[in-house]
């Protein structure tokens, strides 16, 4: 295995995964948001909730479809690019990810059909329950993935068998791993916040354009209000994730902090340019004592630096260091927006502050950026290990893949994903722009339940085809 083939495999996995995660991050939150809207509609009978529900359901459908197709690729890439990992750890990750796809089909696909096409065919309570089941299904999918990934971060409940194969000895230790149970809520909250800011930004956008004002007000207020409660909770869970990293993956923690030497008491590097070759920071701005406070909640604890680990066991510093800071920065921005927003709501005049509406509108990518940079921190920080302390990434990759092979596949993925993204983004943009108008077509009778890819809404090709028919192709 040459090094460039390994690097290309990593880039390909990171690219396809980063592309995929955007959509589940969006749909996990949207499914919960739809459940909330439907519950509000059934209890208050205010039409605005029903309009908003139909509006976001169309967007949910598109994002869900893209999430499904890009997820299929992930089901194969463990085998194609990481055959040694699958051969050795497939006995543990295989069943976990197997549960993920089985759950996805059983819960999501079935109830997704009811959601998209069944409003007129089922009683209200059943429709609401279907919303809930889709939300639960997407979260459960995320749960299995987080269990599998957390096991890679902190492998437990296994014994080593013949030929390096992992043998699961304690499934409950694997499934109820404390690492999984702080990272799973962290991911779910990230998804909720991503969606909440998309909802608030859409509301702000329509208010700025002066369209659908009453609906836009509800979106803005609900999005910001939900975020105002969830961001602080997310900060707590982020802190817990940091705690597990501090205790169980000290090298990753040191890389995030760009701490090269053991320090007591430790200072906190706020910003710097980590120079891995010379094992030091350039242009560092740091605060004394804060590092110990963050790491161990004390003023004089000893914090471990990267130099305490053999060079071969150190993660790259640059990506975890900056990705983490971008993530935290997005979180703090979201906190500021949500709290100022709720303050303006209570003091009145939220909808008239155009600068604030612009700020909220521009905030729609924050959740996505925070989610992606968070994953980059977790995954790059785990290097050089694929399964922490057990399998190095260089030993996990398919040994006989060549650079040209992976170059070809990476180029193919880039082209097709660019196409999907373009088509999906244009389509979602059009739906968002059209705004929450009532769409009778959602209850169309000729539709079908198991079509995660099917796209609701206007189909100009259908009408425009009529003249071509007469030309008798």
């Amino acid at each position, binding site marked *: 295995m040459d090094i460039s083939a390994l690097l290309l495999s990593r880039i390909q996995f990171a690219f396809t995964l980063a592309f995929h995660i955007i959509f589940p991050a969006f749909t996990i939150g949207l499914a919960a948001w739809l459940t909330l809207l439907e519950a509000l509609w059934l209890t208050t009978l205010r039409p605005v909730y029903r309009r908003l529900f139909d509006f976001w359901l169309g967007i949910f459908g598109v994002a869900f479809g893209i999430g499904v197709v890009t997820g299929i690729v992930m089901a194969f890439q463990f085998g194609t690019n990481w055959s040694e990992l699958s051969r050795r750890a497939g006995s543990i990750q295989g069943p976990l990810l197997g549960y993920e796809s089985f759950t996805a089909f059983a819960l999501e696909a079935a109830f997704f059909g009811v959601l998209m096409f069944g409003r007129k065919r089922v009683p209200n309570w059943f429709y609401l329950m279907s919303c809930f089941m889709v939300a639960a299904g997407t979260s459960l999918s995320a749960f299995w993935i987080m269990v599998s990934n957390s096991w890679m971060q902190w492998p437990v409940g296994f014994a080593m068998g013949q030929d390096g194969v992992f043998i699961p000895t304690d499934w409950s230790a694997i499934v109820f791993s404390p690492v999984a149970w702080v990272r799973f809520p962290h991911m779910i909250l990230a998804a909720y916040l991503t969606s909440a800011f998309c909802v608030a930004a859409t509301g702000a956008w329509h208010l700025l354009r002066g369209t659908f004002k009453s609906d836009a007000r509800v979106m803005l207020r609900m999005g910001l209000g939900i975020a105002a409660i969830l961001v602080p909770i997310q900060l707590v869970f982020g802190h817990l994730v940091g705690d597990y990293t501090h205790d169980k993956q000290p090298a990753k923690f040191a890389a995030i902090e760009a701490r090269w030497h053991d320090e007591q008491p430790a200072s906190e590097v706020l910003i710097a340019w980590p120079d891995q070759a010379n094992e030091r920071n350039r242009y560092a701005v740091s605060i004394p004592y804060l590092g110990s406070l963050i790491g161990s909640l004390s003023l004089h604890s000893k914090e471990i630096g990267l130099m305490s680990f053999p060079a071969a066991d150190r993660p790259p510093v640059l990506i975890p260091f900056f990705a983490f800071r971008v993530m935290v920065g997005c979180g703090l921005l979201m906190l500021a927006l949500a709290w100022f927003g709720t303050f303006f709501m209570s003091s009145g005049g939220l909808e008239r502050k155009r600068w604030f509406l612009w700020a909220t509108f521009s905030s729609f990518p924050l959740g996505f950026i925070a989610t992606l940079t968070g994953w980059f921190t977790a995954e790059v920080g785990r290097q050089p290990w694929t399964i922490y302390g057990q399998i190095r990434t260089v030993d996990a990759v398919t040994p006989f893949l060549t650079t040209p092979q992976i170059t070809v596949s990476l180029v193919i993925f880039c082209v097709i994903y660019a196409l*999907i993204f373009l088509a999906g983004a244009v389509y979602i943009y059009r739906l968002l722009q059209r705004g929450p108008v009532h769409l009778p077509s959602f209850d169309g009778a000729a539709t079908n339940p198991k079509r995660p*890819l099917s796209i609701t809404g206007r189909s100009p090709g259908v009408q425009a085809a009529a003249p071509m028919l007469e030309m008798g192709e």
Partner: protein
Amino acid sequence: MISFWTFALGLSILLYVTLDGFDLGVGMLFPFAPNETARRHMLAAISPVWDGNETWLVVAASILFGIFPLVYATLLSALYLPLIVMLVALIFRGLAFEFRYKSVRFRWFWDVGFAGGSFVAAFIQGTAVGALVEGLAIQDGRYIGGPFGWVSPFALLCGLGLCLGYCLLGAGWLTYRTAEDVQSFAFRLLPRLMAAVLLFLAAVFALALALDLRVMHRWLEQPELAAFPVVGLVACAVFYFAIRNKYPLVPFLCGLAIFSAAFGTLAVSFYPYMVPFSITIQQAAAPPESVAFLFWGAGVFVLPITIIYTLAVYFVFKGKVDSDAEYH
């Protein structure tokens, strides 16, 4: 439990091949349709079910990963390029299916993508089966054949053969789901497709004899395998009468029977190997702890539910597409 999962794996592969087979076949026949109305009817004939059909591919991959990780790791990495191209072809085809009606100017682009993606996916699946039958270069459970170790005249012939087989299933499905001109188009095609498939089977058989493939020895060793060709022949005879009398649906069911017979032949002649002739089912199986963990949830509950759900969808969408069928 290993037997259960082996059966479940076989069933999901068979379901995938026959179900996605007919909609890939419709995709390949798509460019030959007489006119735009016919093309729309063809799309409408598969639109309720095609992505449900593809879920069986993921089910099969999940079972491989969870229960037979050695086979998952070996096969998927050995077939690296073809698999990636196949996945992208399937995605592109799905995308084309949905976006065909979303644009006017670029419809030609999506049409080419739909038909081309269907062809590429089918061709690669056939090639992969061919390569598997011929035997991949595997030593001590590790693939050693290089990036194009799966390419051979025999494998490529199998690729072409599966395309024809899928077209046969597709045309058979069209006789069931469509009426009038599309149905008669399908009935016109069926005899030629059947002749082509039989010709291909003869060619494969001859080539296998000429290459002296190990699989052939197993056929000679196990005469009870002859049951499958007999099923195939009976299906061909029924097929002939159905075409003459223009019975709808029957050609599709005959196609199913032929595919099942061929699949059964392969499965029995591989047994007890999973990757012939290097990895057996027992060697491939994950530790019992893993197998049991997946069995008590996914095996006992989710798999049967998924099968029932698939049946329900086919039941809901039985019968003909509307003659003035529109999208959605």
